[in-house]
């Protein structure tokens, strides 16, 4: 967690100056009761109007200097806090981008996003408030006590008693309430879950006439939340009354002691007034300090979570090679096994096969049989636990990952587009692609027609996640995106599921027009999509149970036949 502080380093000057200026402001505030004491004891006592005037002038000056000091401090602390959080965010973003699929799976995208947004913001507020208040609040409290000592050591003992008592009270209340806030949060989460359930399941709930049961379950969760909120509220509501009582009892004590000591001439009336003022100042600062503690606690928790993410390092080390060997065997799996982070069973075990340049490879198998895993090993999204994956005769781990991936065009299962224009999205495939190249890719992907029909063609805006396009259009655009880079290997991971059969058939025949050297991998649930592949890999439960073309497999491979029969029958109709 200390490492995070390095992001504050560029703002060292601000981070030091902000608290110093805050302390200057505090010193000036501490002088005010003293000036008033002089007014009472010297000015009023002697009836010296000029003296009173002078002192009022001093008060105004103190105010002006205080204002300047405070504004300077606020500026420095804001600059340091904002700069710090921008630095952390940037570093965190780069760090996350350096992680491999394995770490992405482990952290989870939702978590990564909250770390980048919510947690970094908590830290920013924490730094800002700490710079402003962490020194100032205790300083004012201690300063008030020290000033009290300079006035009268005996009266000051009251401060010595009151201050710890105040801190103890606040600490106890926070200790009791903070964990209970978590309880409130848990109950709120339950209410949220019920609400979400009621909405996502609205059809089923109505179909089964379950509305009233759902309502009563919601009410129960809702009541529970209210009960808890009231309990926590009752305790935390004690803070203000208790501190108010303690400080005022301190004032009562000060007056009693003051009365005795004025009577014997140790103190003056003005000094008693000053002591009372100091006591009042403590209360204001204490409230600020309590809030600060909450802010810092939250910020530290956020910082801990962020630094946990920083701790995670990519499990892959990048190679340097940019060229493979001069061989027609474009891809070879040698006894490859892989097991995912949290799984007991390997996702793939002992897979071996070889692919020649220009072949079309179909991959078949049920859900969870390891089709996508196999695909993901080719561009080295994951590393094999055992065995090797060779791309043009060289282990994929020896390549520079960016270079390796540039040779491969992948169309993922989920057709995701990004905000921007169609052109922006296609250029993901190749940054400097010309319009010519983009249109060519769209043509092959069967997307040219509908893109031409858009009012802005290539510059047609794409909304978040591409929701202004239909599922089929999105899929064709993602295929075009992969084609733009003219890949050596094209991977289609079940990426024509949203196309109707006619469109899929024309896509298939237009893919045949790609240069002969392009090797294509097709994962598909549709028997017809892979039926005419040069090579079909059949997976079941992570094992390769069949390799060959359709005719060979139909006669030799039970699993293939079973899948083919059931699905072919199904497809015949629609």
């Amino acid at each position, binding site marked *: 967690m200390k490492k995070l502080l390095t992001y504050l380093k560029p703002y060292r000057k601000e981070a030091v100056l902000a608290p110093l200026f805050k302390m200057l402001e505090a010193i000036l505030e501490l002088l005010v009761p003293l000036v008033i004491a002089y*007014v009472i004891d010297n000015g009023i006592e002697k009836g010296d109007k000029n003296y*009173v005037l002078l*002192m*009022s002038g001093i008060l105004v000056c103190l*105010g002006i200097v*205080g*204002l300047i000091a405070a*504004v300077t401090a*606020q500026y420095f602390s*804001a600059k340091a806090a904002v700069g710090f959080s*921008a630095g952390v965010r*940037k570093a965190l*973003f780069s760090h*996350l981008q350096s992680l491999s699929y394995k770490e992405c799976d482990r952290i989870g*995208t939702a978590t990564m*996003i909250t770390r*980048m*947004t919510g947690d970094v913001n908590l830290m*920013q507020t924490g730094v800002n408030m700490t710079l*402003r208040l962490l020194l100032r609040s205790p300083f004012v409290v201690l300063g008030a006590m020290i000033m009290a000592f300079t006035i009268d050591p005996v009266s000051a003992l009251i401060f010595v008693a009151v201050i710890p008592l105040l801190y103890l009270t606040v600490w106890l209340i926070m200790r009791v309430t903070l964990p209970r806030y978590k309880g409130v949060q848990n109950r709120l989460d339950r*209410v949220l879950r019920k609400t*979400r359930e009621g*909405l996502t399941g609205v*059809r*089923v709930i109505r*179909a089964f006439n379950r509305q009233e049961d759902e*309502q009563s379950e*919601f009410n129960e969760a809702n009541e529970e*939340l*209210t009960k808890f909120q009231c309990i926590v509220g*009752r305790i935390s*509501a004690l803070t203000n*009354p208790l501190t*108010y009582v303690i400080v005022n009892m301190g004032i*009562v004590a000060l*007056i*009693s002691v003051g009365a005795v000591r*004025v*009577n014997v*001439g140790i103190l003056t*009336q003005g000094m008693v007034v000053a002591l009372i*003022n100091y006591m*009042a100042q403590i209360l204001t600062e204490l409230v600020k300090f309590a809030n600060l503690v909450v802010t810092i606690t939250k910020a530290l928790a956020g910082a801990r979570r962020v630094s946990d993410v920083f701790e995670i390092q990519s499990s892959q080390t990048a190679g340097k090679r940019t060229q493979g060997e001069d061989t027609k065997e474009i891809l070879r799996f040698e006894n490859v096994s892989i097991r995912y982070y949290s799984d007991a069973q390997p996702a793939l075990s002992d897979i071996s096969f070889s692919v020649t340049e220009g072949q079309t490879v179909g991959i078949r198998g049920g859900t*969870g*049989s390891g089709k996508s895993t196999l695909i993901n090993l080719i561009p080295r999204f994951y590393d094999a636990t055992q065995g090797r994956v060779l791309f043009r005769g060289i282990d994929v781990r020896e390549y520079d*990952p*960016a270079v390796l991936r540039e040779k491969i065009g992948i169309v993922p299962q989920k057709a*995701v587009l990004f905000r921007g224009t169609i052109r922006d999205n296609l250029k993901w495939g190749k940054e400097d692609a010309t319009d010519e190249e983009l249109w060519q890719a769209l043509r092959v992907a069967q997307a040219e027609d509908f893109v031409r029909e858009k009012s802005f063609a290539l510059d047609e805006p794409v909304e978040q996640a591409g929701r202004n396009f239909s599922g*089929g259009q999105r899929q064709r655009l993602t295929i075009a995106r992969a084609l733009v880079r003219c890949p050596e290997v094209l991977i289609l991971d079940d990426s024509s*599921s949203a196309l109707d*059969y*006619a469109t899929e*058939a024309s896509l*298939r*025949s237009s893919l045949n027009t790609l240069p002969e050297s392009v090797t294509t991998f097709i994962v598909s649930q549709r028997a*017809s999509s892979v039926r005419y592949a040069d090579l079909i890999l059949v997976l079941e439960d992570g094992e390769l149970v069949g390799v060959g073309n359709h005719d060979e497999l139909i006669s030799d491979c039970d699993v293939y036949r079973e899948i083919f029969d059931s*699905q072919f029958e199904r497809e*015949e*109709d*629609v």
Partner: protein
Amino acid sequence: MNRKQTIKTVLSYLRPYWGYLFLSLSLALVTVALTLYVPILTGQAVDQILGVGDVNFPEVFKILVSIAASVSVTALAQWGMSLCNNRLTFGMIRDIRRDAFKKISVLPLRYIDSRPVGDLVSRVISDVDTLADGLLMGFTQLFTGCATILGTLAIMLFLYYRIALVVILVTPISLFVASFIAKRTYSMFQRQSTVRGEQTALIDEMIGEQKLVLAFAYEERAKKRFSDVNERLRSASLQAIFYSSLMNPSTRFVNSLVYAGVGLVGALAVISGCGFTVGLLSSFLSYANQYTKPFNEISGVVTELQNALACAARTFELIRAEEESQDSDADPLPETVPGNVSLDHVYFSYHPDQSLIEDLTLSVSSGQRIAIVGPTGCGKTTVINLLMRFYDPVSGSVKVEQIDVREISRYSLRKNYGMVLQETWLKSGTVRENIAVGKPNATEDEIISAAKASHAHSFIMRLPNGYDTPIGEAGDGLSQGQKQLLCIARVMLCRPPMLILDEATSSIDTRTEHKIQRAFSKLMEGRTSFIVAHRLSTVREADCILVMRDGKVIEQGTHSQLLARNGFYAQLYQSQFAH
């Protein structure tokens, strides 16, 4: 919903708690009055401590007792006020949430379908939370703040009006400074939140789809785009935070002017000897010290309240939304019907300018099977929506047993249907609870035999706690196929006379799919069934096929009739064998 209506609605939710509100306000007055009284007492005490040998001890003691008493009462009143406010606020938001959820069950599906779930959830959860925060702060600080300002001025005027005049003269400066900064800050915060929104969207995309970023080696380009928006956020945040942090020092400065002014005028008044004492000066100074604090708080509360009202308006918009048409009271259907369904010249559209179903007429007699086919996303669910009366047709009618469904209560209509959707929905609860959704009082035997009949029993028994295994909303830990089997078991338990089934497309492994098919066949025996179909056998055996495309029913007939017609259905069918 405009602001006036929103406030009116808030007040109507406040009504059951007016006792608490009244008590809270009374206690607030007590608190303010006593808090203002204590400095007077302190001042009086100071006046009894004049100098050596000039201290009136009995009087000081009497005053100190009063101070202690006032302080104790204040503390109690403060606590009582907080408790009332808690009750009031938390009770109110409980009522609002309850009503909002209740509303969800009577909203037309049109309303729910046209809004993202996240948006509706936030109307029930976070918007109501913001309202609670705003109300709590409003009650505690707005009222006490105003009362404190007025009380202070009143007491000052009463004690010594000349000093009060000094304070009153400075007040407008205080107000002006506060509102000036608040206004500037608001626009800067708006800019900050725009840029932040932009950044969050980028993070959502680049981190959310990190795998694609890696696949396309887009990392460097992503970093560049991020750096750019990050820099802009930095400067926007710096301005917003800096300006908002000016509020405190500025008002404190105004406060120090008030303080100096009071000190000056007060001290001169004491010297000129017109009855103004040092004790009074001390009281005045402590008022002056606290004087601008309520101004700060009020300006904070006002923004908070504005925010709260904006959020409340969103929630109330949900609560006030138009409900489903009134349900028919009459239940002309018997407990179970034979299952004759007919659609009579039905027209339907989701949007008035885009008509989907035009003049659909269909007559289904008891026990028949209707298959609905078409490419993905062609609107097959539209038909389900009409049958289940999730939506009403624009014109024409849907009839069950010759009775228009609009004359049947939704309850008894839906009781006669069993529905299994491809998008499975499980509630958080145990496996048993999920099966018994349609029949909460089912016996253990009934549940198990339903599970067996739908081929779910064997995998349920393999779960860690069998039927008592808890499953989450998303059904985590279960495969898609297993989830669907559970949903089938649900229907199997109720055995309604009419069925709506959605055949799985692709995401289910072959074996489970066989089980689902067998379960479906068993379920369909002797029942009127509507099936969103993907399998040839289903279509061949169907008594009627509805062919849908782009949300419209374009063809209708049996398998052989449709092939003979050589239309879209035939084309779809042919494309399978064309190569």
